[in-house]
């Protein structure tokens, strides 16, 4: 795959994106932590004081397990989608492997994801859950989520060049997904007939697997793992195919 032959370029683009975001900000990377913390606080308040749900222990950590993967997904997908338009000057004027543009933006968000995963693990340990061998599954699971977002972003960024409405479709989808991913409720209370569908949603699958590993000390079931692998791989292949088909005409439309 062509994307992977341009390691130096990709690395530079990722670093560039990361630096641009934090340059001239006094709090820097702290902002990466603030958003999930605020959301965690708000949701914990609502679901322990307003709609108390005694069946879930440690609601703060529970909800953070959902927020961290969801946040990465939502933010990375939107910025991936708009990446070609935001870098129009680059795409129009410089001959670079164009796949590198959305992929580098998603991967730059991956750095924030790592920081937030660090935050999550700190909360998990702080709440008294121990380290367990199933943690070794985490890199794979989070890695597959990154692959999935890369695939989606390749396709959606290419379409966004031709139809600028795509960005709004992506944003609306994210809003819907906030409710359809088990972030502030548990997978257990989903009615049986919808459970399979949930597992095919990679974000939901990542959240579920994450909770099983971190909070229940259990190995994620293979039914989740293979679906996650399948959907992520297919998304990447479709993304690359869509991108390749349309990239010749990018310069004419930007």
């Amino acid at each position, binding site marked *: 795959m062509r994307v992977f032959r341009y390691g*130096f*370029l990709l690395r*530079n*683009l990722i670093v*560039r994106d990361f*630096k*641009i975001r934090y*340059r*001239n900000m006094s709090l820097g990377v702290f902002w990466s932590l603030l958003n999930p913390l605020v959301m965690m606080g708000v949701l914990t308040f609502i679901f322990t004081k307003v709609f108390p749900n005694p069946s879930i222990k440690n609601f703060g950590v529970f909800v953070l397990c959902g927020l961290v993967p969801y946040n990465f997904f939502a933010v990375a997908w939107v910025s991936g989608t708009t990446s070609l338009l935001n*870098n129009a*000057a*680059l795409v*129009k*004027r*410089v*001959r*670079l492997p164009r796949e590198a543009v959305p992929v580098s933006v998603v991967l730059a968000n991956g750095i924030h994801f790592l920081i937030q995963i660090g935050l999550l693990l700190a909360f998990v340990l702080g709440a008294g859950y121990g380290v367990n061998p199933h943690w070794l599954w985490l890199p794979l699971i989070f890695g597959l989520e990154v692959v999935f977002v890369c695939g989606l972003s390749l396709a959606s960024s290419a379409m966004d060049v*031709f*139809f600028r*409405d795509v960005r709004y479709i992506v944003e609306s989808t994210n809003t819907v997904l906030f409710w359809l991913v088990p972030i502030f409720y548990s997978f257990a209370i989903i009615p049986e007939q919808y459970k399979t569908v949930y597992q095919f949603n990679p974000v939901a699958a990542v959240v579920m697997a994450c909770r099983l590993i971190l909070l229940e000390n259990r190995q994620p079931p293979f039914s989740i793992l293979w679906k996650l692998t399948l959907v992520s791989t297919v998304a990447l292949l479709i993304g690359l195919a869509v991108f390749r088909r349309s990239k*010749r*005409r990018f*310069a*004419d*439309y930007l």
Partner: protein
Amino acid sequence: MASAIEFRHVSKIYYRHHTRRFFHRYLMERMRRVPREPFYALRDVSFELEEGGSLAVVGPNGAGKSTLLSLIAGLSFPDEGQVEVRGRVAGLLELGSGFHPDLTGRENLVVYASLLGLSRKELRDRFDEIVEFSGIGDFLDEPLRTYSAGMILRLAFSVAIHVDADIMLFDEILAVGDQAFQAACLEKIRELRRKGSTFVCVSHSSELLKRLCTRGIWLEGGQVVRDGPVAEVVEAYQLSLVAHAHSAGTGRG
């Protein structure tokens, strides 16, 4: 000698509503084949440039000069005819594409060099030379927004000429530099030409073109009006400008 660039009956067509295109419109076109009104940015352009050649492209705004360069650079593709380009192309099609004002000169330099296709090792070997030629000096670690336009040009140009491309494209960029830097650029370009690099330059400065290039093409309305030795073509073009004084091209093409 083998040709570095070959255009065979090349046309580039844009359609009027490219800028405002809605999905339903797109579907309608797809299904009913609504006739679209074409606009030829280039029409039936043919030429050949041999390896080591240097071509000046002149013409008024909107003549198709930039379209021509982006076809050579492989950034866009012809709708009719064939474009053949042999070798590594490095283009300065716009001053500092990919530069970010909040990053330092050094950071921008690294990103830009990798965008133009330098590997980590190539960049390491040439880094000092690039900085030296740019003459940025102490500003290297200052954010780019503190740079003047001339300094940004020097940085971008310095990276571009150290890529060792077989074919180099310049779109109206040398105009920003001061006399001393222009002289240094010309010297460097002559040196690269002796090494066999091919050049294509777009500029409204006929003096510069006459010093840089040997061959000239005059484009107008997307078509080749004249093709020949640079002095002849540039002078003919300027005569036509005098004749239509009101349509003098002053901006970018």
